[in-house]
């Protein structure tokens, strides 16, 4: 402790306490930025992130969720959106800046099978305007999805679904470093397989 003083002001002015407060604040910021949670769908940050990634103005259609979905230690963003005509047109371009996938068409390794399937055959996914999508934006660095450098995005389409899936955040398993998006009222969750988001049964 520094020189003795009178009251909180003196205490706060001590160098050590400033360092302690700064460290505590930093830890709280770091903690809050890596915790899985929901985000305000009207948030300017969310809209800005969508615009940065998709190159077109688009609004969330439901509550965004944040968490570390790919386990790299950086907070990611999951936002339900509806495809706009511009987005549908982009999806037909030769080299889009995001990856369009249908999780239903991507197999997972079956741990019970001795002979494993080969990686998936090419499955073209076609977008149409108004189609419900889930955009997952991978974060970069400590700022995660808020980082202007964060632009790796996956657009998940669910053409086989009767209704647009609604996602919730699963409780993070003990010793796990990854957050999981699970479909409400079903037993399946989206997990990152290193290349795509695929369905896996929840435990």
């Amino acid at each position, binding site marked *: 402790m520094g020189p003795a003083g009178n009251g909180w002001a003196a205490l706060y002015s001590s160098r050590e306490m400033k360092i302690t407060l700064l460290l505590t604040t930093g830890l709280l910021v770091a903690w809050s930025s890596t915790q899985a949670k929901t985000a305000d769908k009207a948030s300017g940050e969310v809209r800005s992130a969508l615009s940065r990634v998709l190159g077109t103005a688009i609004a969330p259609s439901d509550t965004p969720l944040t968490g570390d979905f*790919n386990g*790299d230690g950086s907070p990611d963003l999951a936002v339900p959106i509806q495809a706009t005509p511009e987005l549908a047109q982009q999806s037909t*371009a*030769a*080299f*889009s*800046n*995001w*990856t369009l996938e249908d999780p239903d068409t991507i197999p997972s*390794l079956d*741990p*019970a*099978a*001795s*002979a*494993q399937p*080969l*990686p*998936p055959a*090419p499955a073209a996914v076609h977008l149409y305007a108004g189609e419900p999508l889930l955009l997952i934006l*991978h974060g*970069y660095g400590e700022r995660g999805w808020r980082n202007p*450098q*964060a*632009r*790796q995005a996956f657009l998940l389409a669910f053409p086989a679904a009767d209704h647009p899936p609604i996602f919730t955040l699963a409780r993070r398993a003990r*010793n796990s*470093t990854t957050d999981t998006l699970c479909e409400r009222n079903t037993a399946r969750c989206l997990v990152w*397989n*290193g*290349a*795509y988001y695929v369905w896996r049964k929840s435990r």
Partner: protein
Amino acid sequence: MLHKILPKDSLNRPLTFCVTALIMAFTLAGSAQSPTSSEASSGFTTPTGCPEGTLPPGIGSCTSNGMAEPPGDTFTADQSTFEEQETLPVLGPVYNDTACVNCHQNPVTGGTSQIAELRVGHNDSSGHFVSPTISINNDQTSIPNRSLVNDRAVCAQAQERVPQSETIRTFRMTINTLGDGYVEAIDSNTLAQIASNQARQTRGQIAGEFIQVPVAEAPGQVRGGRFGWKNQHASLLSFAADAYLNEMGVSSRLQPTDTTTLCKSTTDPEDGPDANGLADIDHFAQFMRATNAPPRDAALPATPDAQAGASLFNQIGCGICHVTRITTAPVGTVINGGAYTVPAALGSKTIHPYSDFLLHNVGTGDGIVQNGPADTASKMRTAPLWGLRTRGRLMHDGQSLTRNDAILRHAGEATGVINNYRSLSTTQKGQIMTFLNSL
């Protein structure tokens, strides 16, 4: 001139170390061409079966890079051994395939293929990778501490299956071995310099990890790893012995114990010397060392689009890791812990591998640790892009099916570079694709 930072080719002291911690007093990396170096020979010149007579158009004749053979040996004999089908009783008991060529075959013997192997494991409570122990024979026998899960066995009891507990599961695509003699002949200092330059050039955003791994034929010696998706091997002889045991189930003097004794009737080591004193693993290594480097396409490189794409490739930063040009160590350099001397055919040669042969975290790490430290779980070796046009399934697990998907899959250290790519016009991206398809 290269400033030597490691004595001779590599160190014996630390098993692994991170190059970013090294003193950064280097001149340019080995990407510079030495005044005395010459271009390495290239060509797809190992057609499978090395047929006599007329070959289809586009297939080169059966030739090596000119490397001298041991007494009594020939390049043809080495290739034949590489293509030899193993059978019982030496095959297995657990294995993935019956010959080197069955996986390393596209478009010629020694190349790549669509075939993948399976690796699994799990993390302990501290988050450290643990290789599994896999029970076979109705839990009467186990295969401990091995991330590789063989897809075949010579008897049903020996078949490996992935335990539910092993939550890390990944495929590893077959990698090309053509031109690997040149890669083996790269001085470890050159790789270390490339890593150091990357960190300096990008202010630490890109920093390849250089690891040193044991050289099986030089007990107690280590060298800069460069072979395998995790850089788990530094010498082609070590790599050959590892693959012979783990992919075909054949033990040798460098890997003298089979994976299991279940359904096994032979005595280890199974691979013995022939009349010339050479075992199969010697022929495998000799074959890989004598192959030509993968050649560029005959027509595309000269097109304006491919040339513009090549410039863009370097301008946006791809070439920081996919290094365009490396020069091998001079003839006579002793490498592999003293077990091998760079021959005339491989020394002071300029190659264009489009790789730095370093480990990077580009967001695709498969969670597996092999010969490297714990942090290599999230890293993979930069895939050499020479011969890329012969591959349809991309990245370490083959999950990326288009060039664009593979590029967009890069994250982590590659984030800045890939964002540069995203900023290109469709025309410019197309030029990069043309360039990639010329490799």
